[in-house]
């Protein structure tokens, strides 16, 4: 796993963005950016090249699921690994995200170990 990869953390709650960033830093990631909503995230993804996105589901105006769907319909963005980090733990939600093409699904509240394991599984090592 390349810890120098460019990561985008998307969540409308600043506290949560800070927590996810801290966990990623503890794992060893050094290049982390933030977005506070789906639209800002999509703009950032079109301007810079990101290697990974961790995104909340419940956000005003544009949900994480909508961000995922838009990414998957864009040739330039569809291959960027997408991890949904959300409090939505219903089976139907998970199925919906998987059908939309999510790479991994982490339920809040999470542990640092969970995020570490999921990312290692996605990228290896």
């Amino acid at each position, binding site marked *: 796993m390349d810890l120098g990869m460019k990561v985008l953390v998307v969540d409308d709650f600043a506290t949560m963005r800070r927590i996810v960033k801290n966990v990623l830093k503890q794992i060893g990631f050094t290049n982390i950016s933030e977005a506070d909503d789906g639209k800002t995230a999509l703009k950032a993804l079109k301007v810079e090249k990101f290697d990974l996105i961790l995104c909340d589901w419940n956000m005003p105006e544009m949900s994480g699921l909508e961000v995922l769907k838009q990414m998957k319909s864009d040739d330039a963005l569809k291959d960027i690994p997408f991890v949904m980090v959300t409090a939505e733990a219903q089976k139907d939600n998970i199925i919906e995200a998987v059908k939309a093409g999510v790479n991994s699904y982490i339920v809040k*509240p999470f542990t640092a170990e969970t995020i570490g394991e999921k990312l290692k599984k996605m990228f290896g090592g």
Partner: protein
Amino acid sequence: MKDHLKEKISTIADDKLTSKETEELFHFIRQTMSNNMSHHDELFFKNLAREMTGQVKDLALLIIDCKTDLKSKIHPDLTDIATRYLPQTTDQLETIIEATEIAANKIMDNLERMQEDIEKMKKVFVSLKEGKIITAGGEKEIDSQTIKTISPFIEYVESSIKDYLSLISDSFIQMSFQDLTGQRIKRIIKLVSQMEEKIKRMIISFGIKLSERERNPNISKEELQRAVEEKVTELAGPQKEGQGVDQAGIDELLANL
């Protein structure tokens, strides 16, 4: 009735009477009729009139009571809820979100500082294990015997550092309570705001319909609804989407009740 009687007289008299004679006959008949109304009949009709007046008055009082009762039902309870308690509730809930965010950020500031300091300490002990010590005068070598002697201490400290970093990381993640509670509170705020708008709309509808009907008892249902919609638009004014009617507007409507 007067014209009807005169017409009757003319018909009976086969149009053989002059206008003056018809008029005189009319007055004679009328006088005769009133003189013939007995005292008993007069009393009867007077009582009947009084009873009708009384019934009409009672009906009027009933309508007034109904309006007063309606006002008392709407004004103290519902109006207060719609214009004071619900907005206060949403304000207080938003304050909770802000307060918990501030507290969570302060705690995370402290935790990050602890993490940084402990990482620095970790580097010092890694250096010690490698036989180096950082002093005010710069980096110095430590002899192997000293390293061997202090090795258990170094291992103990490294193990503790690992535990503390884990605790700090866990404490950091616990701050996610602010996100979880915040999301739920936001849903409640949305629900309360929707309730507030619905209650205000109900007050507007009641107030307008009652006052318009008073002005025009024959007003149609469609016209009443149109009047309500116009008032809603007027009271909402150039406000942000989602913001509804203000207190002054509500008070004006209630004054009509």
